[in-house]
């Protein structure tokens, strides 16, 4: 990568001209993708997959490395009503070092503000923010000789990235895919799967339409795993889908003592607490923890725990106390607004924990 070194030097020299800003702050006015300050992408195409699911083809900007591993997810931040909302979605396109695009496939959830916005409201040309690929639900390299995928609904997306990679590299081993979907129409990638099945003798696709045939009874001898894939015990298994399905799968694997062979990906959000307030706050850097009720501010909690919390006015005006919420949810006591996005900046003097959370200090 010798070409990147002088380029970096040019950018650094450019910063002397633009200080205290970065050259990217000006360049991104010419082309929004010309900035490394935040990873960005432009939506090039929105492909309707089913009635309620769509694939977004995104052209990432500067700083994006097409090195995601098949099965990983990326964060996507979209401005809705002026505010950036972030969610994570599996990348469905295979990694390509020379790639120019990535694709994510999104199903609109009835209660999901962002997913329906992505599926129905995102016009090509929209600039979105991206977060680096993450996750360890990935295809090993080289792939194991025998694999089983257990998939429900939009859980197909990370698996699709794996199948496409195997297809492109012509290394499709002995693969069984079980795919549950309410109806044939709601099955994402239906045609492509049929094509892959045709092309690769090693790939077997087992389709289950749960609206008519009922859900997969994992442990059932007649209709369960033993029927779908009799040699499942000898296979490395990847499962992705709705929570109840994954719970049943992992319970079954544990019962058989095979949990080491199972890889899980939960794509539904874990809700912090069950509507209750308060919880345990962990202060990441100092390693301190404290149990608090819903009326104690994060600032007071930190002081109780002996953390050197920064603060100023203690009334929410000066922002001296702002810290990074690593995970969990806090509620603004002034207006009840909740902040739950990972790595969000929160004012500790006016927010209280809603369930367990982690603060970076």
């Amino acid at each position, binding site marked *: 990568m010798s070409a990147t070194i002088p380029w970096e030097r040019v950018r650094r020299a450019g910063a002397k001209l633009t*200080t205290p*800003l970065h050259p990217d702050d000006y360049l991104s006015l010419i082309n929004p993708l010309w900035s490394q300050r935040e990873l960005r992408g432009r939506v090039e195409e929105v492909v309707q997959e089913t009635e309620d699911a769509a694939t977004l083809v995104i052209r990432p900007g500067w700083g994006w490395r097409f090195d995601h591993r098949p099965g990983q997810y990326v964060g996507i931040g979209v*401005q809705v009503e002026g505010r*950036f909302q972030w969610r994570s979605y599996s990348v469905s396109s295979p990694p390509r070092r020379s790639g120019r695009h990535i694709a994510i496939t999104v199903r609109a959830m009835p209660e999901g503000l962002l997913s329906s916005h992505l599926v129905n409201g995102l016009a090509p040309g929209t600039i979105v923010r991206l977060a680096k690929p993450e996750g360890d639900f990935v295809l090993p390299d080289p792939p194991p000789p025998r694999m089983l995928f257990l998939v429900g609904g939009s859980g197909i997306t990370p698996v699709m990235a794996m199948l496409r990679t195997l297809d492109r590299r012509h290394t499709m081993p002995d693969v069984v895919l079980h795919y549950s979907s309410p109806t044939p129409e709601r099955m994402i990638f239906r045609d492509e799967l049929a094509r892959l099945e045709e092309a690769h003798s090693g790939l077997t696709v087992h389709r289950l339409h749960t609206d008519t045939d009922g859900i997969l009874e994992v442990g059932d001898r007649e209709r369960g795993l033993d029927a779908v894939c009799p040699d499942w015990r000898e296979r490395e298994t990847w499962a992705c889908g709705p929570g109840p399905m994954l719970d049943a799968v992992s319970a079954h694997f544990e019962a058989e003592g095979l949990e080491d062979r199972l890889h899980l990906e939960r794509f539904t959000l874990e809700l912090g607490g069950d509507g209750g307030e308060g919880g345990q706050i962990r202060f990441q850097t100092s390693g301190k923890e404290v149990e608090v009720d819903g009326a104690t501010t994060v600032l007071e909690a930190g002081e109780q725990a002996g953390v050197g919390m920064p603060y100023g*006015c203690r*009334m929410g005006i*000066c922002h001296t106390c*702002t810290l990074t919420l690593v995970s969990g949810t806090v509620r603004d006591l*002034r207006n009840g607004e909740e902040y739950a996005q990972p790595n969000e900046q929160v004012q500790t003097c006016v927010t209280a924990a809603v369930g367990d959370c982690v603060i970076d200090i």
Partner: protein
Amino acid sequence: MAIADVQEYTHLTDDEVEQIGRELDRIRADVEASRGAADAAYINRMIKVQRGLAAAARVTLMTTCHSKKARVPGAVAGATMLGLAKILENMEIGHNVMHGQWDWMNDPEIHSSNWEWDTAQPAEQWKHSHNYIHHQFTNVLGYDNDIGYGVLRMAREQRWNPANLGQPVYNALLASLFQWGVALHDLDLEKIRKGEKDPKEMKRQLKQIWRKGRNQALKDYVVYPALSGPHWRTTIKANATANLARNLWSYMIIFCGHFPDGAMHFTEEELEDETRSEWYLRQILGAANFEGGRLLHILSGNLGFQIEHHLFPDLPSNRYAEISERVRALCDKYDLPYTTGPLHRQYGQTLRTIMKLSLPNRFTSSDSPPEPPNRPDAVEAPPVDKGRKSDAELPPRRSELGGWSRSGIGRAS
């Protein structure tokens, strides 16, 4: 004694004070609930215009200086655009972003935690001396360094010193070098004079100021002139003019916020045991607005709505105009003072105060509204327990800087 005991507010009952607090809270809640795409578009557009102006100014200066005919008009145009860009960046963008007015957008590129503004003062120090000290202890003598920036005597309550005779000169210097006055703001010159400043913290702050100030000066007085080639002098002059214009303008706007005749100063005793509603009242009494058109307000960072800004320092500045209508109505309803006037009058009053206070009090008359009468101690009401922790019960106020300071999120250095 609390703020509600100052003369301007003695006609209010405790219930009314709390009612005013609730009404102001409602204004805040309404604006928060209605922030949306239009507001986000506003600040993004402002940033675009500002960066466009800055880039156009630099390019104009670098290219026109080579032509004999275009040099002078080019320098005038370049300096004008650069001055405007600096003013917009410092006032409407930097100051307001660092207040957290745009944090709600959840956009790390427009966020109080990492915004670095185009002036010599490091953002981290500004957020301490301005967002915390100045906005919490607005116009409280001995706390708020904005009262004269540690060099001017701005209140009659401050003791006169023969050095104050030089105020007209100090004032002119402060105005023209305002960027550097602001840069030293958080050092707290008064504390240094009294030998109360922690030397380690001072060294750290000075180092930070030196690094930022050096880059700022290098950019305007070395790098861009060097790029202009043989006609570097033209570029230096234009850049210096732009900086001077920004200094004079921001000095004037800031001094008009708290020193016209209606704005009051307070003592430490007056904020003991203060409730949020009382804090609101103190902000109304300690700030002064000025009137003007939309463009004037944008160029002054909407600080012509100083009262509204002090009531709601972290609400988006483009909303202050509509907020001011509601605040004004509230002030009328409860018969509260609301200081405002045209810019020239507000600055005229400020300048008069600076001149008058260079002399001892006995030579001049006060222009402020009459002081509250001195009451004998006997009538002072016994302290009322408002259920708040007193200063003694709270951990000591921290003088170091906020959480962003050591997180290492650095922009281009």
